């Protein structure tokens, strides 16, 4: 009797029950290339500098201080602060800074695609 394979059978889990390792995604590959080439660090420095210049960092810091004032110094965690400033932080990036960054990322992608 020939064995019939079950068509919809889920993949066999590893012996120790761990999940299968996923293939690296496109974004993972890009991140690895960014880090290996040093471009990620350069971009981070650039963004930090621009955001300090335009006062974005000061805005975020005053948001954090306000949050601490309202919630008490001892109750605040890093996650709390991150959650508190992320919406405003993402929204208040100046367009020029964003454009500059996107351009640099695009250039990098083009250069590694070859």
């Amino acid at each position, binding site marked *: 009797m020939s064995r019939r394979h079950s068509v919809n059978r889920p993949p066999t889990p590893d012996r120790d029950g761990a999940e299968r390792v996923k293939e690296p995604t*496109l*974004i993972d590959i*890009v991140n690895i290339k960014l880090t290996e080439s040093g471009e990620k660090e350069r971009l*981070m420095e650039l*963004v930090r500098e621009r955001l300090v210049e335009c006062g974005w960092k000061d805005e975020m810091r005053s948001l954090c201080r306000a949050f601490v004032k309202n919630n008490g110094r001892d109750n605040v965690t*890093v996650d709390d*602060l991150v959650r508190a*400033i992320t919406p405003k932080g993402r929204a208040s990036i100046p367009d020029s800074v964003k454009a500059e960054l996107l351009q640099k990322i695009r250039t990098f992608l083009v250069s590694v695609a070859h």
Partner: protein
Amino acid sequence: MSLPKVDDIHTNSELISEVFNQLLDSIIVDVASECHRITKLGLDRNLDEEEEELRLFAEARARSSDPSHSGESNSKYVVDMFGQTHPPIASEIFNCMNCGRSIMAGRFAPHLEKCMGKGRKARQKSTRAAQNQNSKGSTVSNRLSNGGSANAGHEYSNGTYEEA
């Protein structure tokens, strides 16, 4: 932090945006972490006092430059950090180095204008002569220059000026 839905990233521009967002998130975490540290270590004690001082200073300045006050009135007395006040118009008197007259410091700039060239009486002779040469029509220029300056010399009809 929200992770990207990796199945959604197909196009280049989505990829670029995703890289940008991840960079931004990292920086936001950095800032939050820094503020958290400052808060927990109590290093922000002085910050509140500095902010208070800045605010008081800004208020004092706003009060002194209130548009409801007239320009040169006494309302512009702002107290500086030594407790001194200064009148709005500088009142020290000194001698003008051009003409030698005693002038009030607050009126020095307008005085210099008249003293050094803007006023008609102060124009130098050579400038006057050049203007006479350049003006059109002899009689018209004669009349103009006669009205504007004390001519010591004769003026010829063709407009040239000659000292006697």
